[in-house]
């Protein structure tokens, strides 16, 4: 058990280190802006007051290392600063948006994970059958589609021509749950289509890899039924790779929503992020970047830890 604890601790430490490096990059990146930061960003037409406010906001009056520590300390206290564009508290701004993004990702995950794993396992079991080949061609194609292509096709057929779902997913805080689900169905479907193909292919590959192992042949030669072999012999060993596939795709769901949010004008963090990038609203960009990166790192960390925990060799050391 000590070995497992050590490995998990190592992963956690690496995750923290990564987070630290990311914060450093996000911070230093802004330092790299050429010339006077305030004027460069605000443009020459900015009034002296806004320039001063901006300098205070980014703590430009302090030396870089003190500024970094102060910035980090603020973040740890939950103070992400104020937006340059509208002077609102960023934590407030991001809070609702991030909840929306997570909601969309969750809806997509609930549809896509069971679907992808089932399809993947079936394709692996009926390898080289017509079904397998068909699925291969379909998923290869859907991986090749840019997300906005999928999104617009869905809009064209289900919103513009079919009129079943709204083409714009505007949700507001007052909306009840099912109304919310109804409005995010199109973006969620888009994400599902993109993610299922990846997840399914990876599931299929890891199961096929597993089915080639000698202990599966042994199980066959012991005269076990097909279900028994799959459930009892293949699945416990497939767990680690499948969990990995799922979590990686969940991470992708959260981070990859940016484009889908833009297409459907969904008020999520991705939309805010892109808007702020275009407006060069640096504090908001920094904050959203950090939130995205932290989520992504956290999910990848979960995948790592789960795959350590589901390895029998590590669970039952010599």
């Amino acid at each position: 058990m000590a070995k497992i604890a050590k490995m998990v601790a190592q992963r956690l430490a690496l995750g923290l280190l990564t987070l630290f490096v990311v914060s450093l990059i996000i911070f230093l990146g802004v330092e790299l802006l050429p010339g006077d930061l305030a004027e460069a960003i605000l443009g020459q037409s900015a009034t002296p007051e806004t320039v001063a406010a901006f300098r205070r906001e980014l703590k430009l009056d302090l030396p870089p290392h003190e500024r970094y520590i102060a910035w980090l300390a603020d973040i740890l206290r939950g103070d992400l600063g104020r937006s340059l564009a509208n002077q609102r508290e960023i934590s407030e701004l991001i809070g609702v948006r991030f909840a929306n993004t997570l909601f969309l990702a969750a809806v997509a995950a609930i549809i896509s994970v069971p679907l992808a794993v089932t399809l993947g396992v079936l394709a692996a079991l009926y390898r080289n059958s017509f079904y397998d080949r068909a699925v291969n061609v379909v998923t290869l194609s859907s991986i090749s589609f840019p997300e906005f292509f999928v999104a617009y096709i869905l809009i064209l057929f289900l919103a513009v021509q079919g009129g079943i779902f709204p083409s714009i997913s505007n949700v507001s805080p007052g909306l009840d749950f099912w109304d919310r689900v109804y409005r995010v169905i199109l973006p969620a479907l888009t994400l599902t289509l993109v993610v299922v193909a990846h997840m399914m292919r990876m599931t299929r590959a890891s199961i096929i890899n597993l089915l080639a192992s000698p202990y599966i042949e042994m199980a066959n030669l012991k005269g076990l039924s097909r279900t028994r072999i799959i459930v009892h012999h293949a699945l416990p060993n497939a767990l680690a790779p499948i969990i990995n596939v799922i979590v990686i795709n969940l991470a992708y769901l959260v981070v990859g929503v940016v484009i889908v949010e833009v297409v459907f004008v969904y008020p999520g963090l991705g939309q805010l992020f892109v808007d702020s990038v275009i407006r060069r609203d640096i504090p908001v960009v920094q904050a959203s970047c950090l939130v995205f990166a932290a989520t992504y790192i956290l999910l990848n960390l979960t995948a790592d830890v789960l795959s350590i925990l589901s390895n029998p060799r590590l669970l039952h050391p010599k």
Partner: protein
Amino acid sequence: MNSVMKLLRSAPPSAVFGMAVIAFYIFVAVFAPLLTPYGESEIVGAEFLAWGDEGFVLGTDNLGRDMMTRLIYGARNTIGIAFVTTCLAFLIGGVFGLMATTVGGWLDQLLGRIVDILMAIPTLIFALLILTILGTSIPVLVVVIAVLDSTRVFRLARAVSMNIVVLDFVEAARLRGEGIWWIIGREVLPNSMPPLVAEFGLRFCFVFLFISALSFLGLGLQPPTADWGSMVRDNATLITYGDITPLLPAAAIALLTIGVNFVVDWFLHKTSGLRDEH
């Protein structure tokens, strides 16, 4: 030469289709100026003309430029930049990956940790951050995406060559006293080629989609350069009227990536099948 022909004849329909698509795109990209009646950003008529209006086969875009011309130039720009970026990513990732395993020890550890950290950062978010800071220009775009993408190439090159540097013929070369670059170039690289070639196709698709996505967000190739991603964005409003014109550049992107993916899939199947025998 004969064996190449034999190989091509054994290709499944999907791979033949993929190769045909790739050949067609390359042709269009190379001969773009000869194939188009107008200049890349030449305004030729009214805005949003429908298909066939005033002799514009696919109508005009939001600024009154010929859609067909933009589409053809788009092939050139988007494919060209994606190709250069992928090459750069392979140069960086490949060289460091092979070096990490061949030299081993602390260098491998160091490069491995750096890449672990870079890969733990979501690519799109990271790219957007850096583009905000440095501004969007083609060289910045190419370098930023190439560096971010080279981490995946590094991982693969390292994983593949990891299995090769432990083989006895590499050890024999070391014991002979061969230099590091000779070992990488003559012993390790030739045996790492098949998976790297396949990965080149996959990475190209990824970079290609990535650049299109950035352009779609308005942060990739800047106007007036014709680019498929931004063409979708600029004309997206047409969709709400049931006009499929903005889907054409998107479909053009999809078709190429499908083509490349089909070829890579076949190639992987083929090379892994050969490996099973030995």
